[in-house]
């Protein structure tokens, strides 16, 4: 299998705990599967590790792990079909869910 390019956004209500924990979980599961990942955190400090237009264009899979509405969501308008939504606490609980939910998108690649 090819190396996937995954990008993700995480956010949570307080913006100090779940946002970072789910970002960590995503990085670990991607690493374990040998895929590339870049995670943008939208926490209490605003946007960290901003996803650029190029990141978004190149991505094979986009994970939205957000409790709070995503800022600058219009960046993703053209790549809607690649987005999966998973609440951050589920990502923390069981990171594999990302690949399970992504199956449909990945088979169409």
């Amino acid at each position: 299998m090819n190396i996937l390019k995954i990008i993700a956004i995480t956010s949570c209500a307080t913006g100090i705990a779940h946002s970072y924990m789910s970002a960590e979980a995503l990085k670990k599961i991607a690493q374990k599967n040998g895929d590339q990942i870049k995670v943008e955190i939208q926490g209490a400090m605003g946007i960290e590790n901003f996803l650029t237009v190029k990141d978004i264009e190149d991505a094979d899979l986009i994970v939205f792990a957000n409790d709070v509405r995503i800022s600058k969501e219009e960046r993703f308008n053209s790549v809607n079909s690649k987005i999966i939504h998973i609440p951050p606490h589920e990502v923390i609980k069981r990171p594999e869910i990302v690949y399970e939910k992504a199956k449909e998108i990945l088979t169409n690649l």
Partner: protein
Amino acid sequence: MDNLKIFGRDIKQALLTGVSYMLAFVVPGGILIALGFAFGGIYVYEDTSFAASLFSWGKIAFSLMVPIMAGYIAFSLADRPGIAPGIIAGMIAESQGSGFIGGMIGGILAGYIVLSIKKVKIPSVLQSLMPVLIIPLFGTIFIGVIMTYIIGVPVTWLNTTMTSVLTNLSGGSLIIFGLIQGAMLAIDMGGPLNKAAYFVAIGMATSGNDWAPMSANFIASMSPPMGIAIAMLISKNKFTTLERKGVGNCIVGGLAMITEFAIPYAVSDPFRVIPSLMVGSAIGAALSYAANLTLQAPHGGVFVILLANKPIVWLGVLAIASLITAGMLILLKPKVVENEIEIEA
């Protein structure tokens, strides 16, 4: 069914978005008010000193809480044009006394009102009037009518009755209230039930000037990670090596009142860990009422302890709650067989 699910997700996301943007107003509001009282005495608001200024800034921050929450609820639902009608809805809730509940309902309604106005077809030459004139004006009129004439009266009644019932609780019923409040704060560690209990405490502090629930809230939110840390230090063989690496995190999380640090432990063993946390937090909250503790800050953990009425007793209650949580954990959890479990802490 799918539509209902999406609707539910939108509402939940909207409420969390509102809370998320609001939190930054809660902290300076609560702490400045407390500092104002601390330096200026209980009649600080009649004063013209610097303490009085601190107090008034805190008041302003507090009065913006509901409007900001409502504004960002509407923003989450309707995007940028939602903000103005949402904030105005929240301001109406604030001034009519319907408080948080009024603000939540107002923000949600403002969001959907703006969404429906967006859908109205108008000639394309007038299109630019939509965001600058039509949505703010009609959005505000519609939400104003709804807030003032339809939901204002019943929700204000509900809000003031709830506040007065809760502030007038005493003796045994207060203890029971504490048990429920503590259990709710611990059960989902920062989730919706925890936030609901937090809101009740905030609401009573702002509308009833009663800071006892906030003290209970602090203890019940801090004892879960603290208790887990203590259990890990006392009884090493009941946690995996990986889990025990998080002991520092749990202590910091406990001191800083970030209950979320307890989540990984609860996830790996929910049926033993969650009840343990609930028992410790429930007893801690009840003891806080029993000892007549108050704490005049909405967040900040041990770093704002000087705002408690009896800091030493307060620390004692926190220690008892944490030790109960730790004791429950040690009692309920079996020894781990190393290399069997691989849970990230």
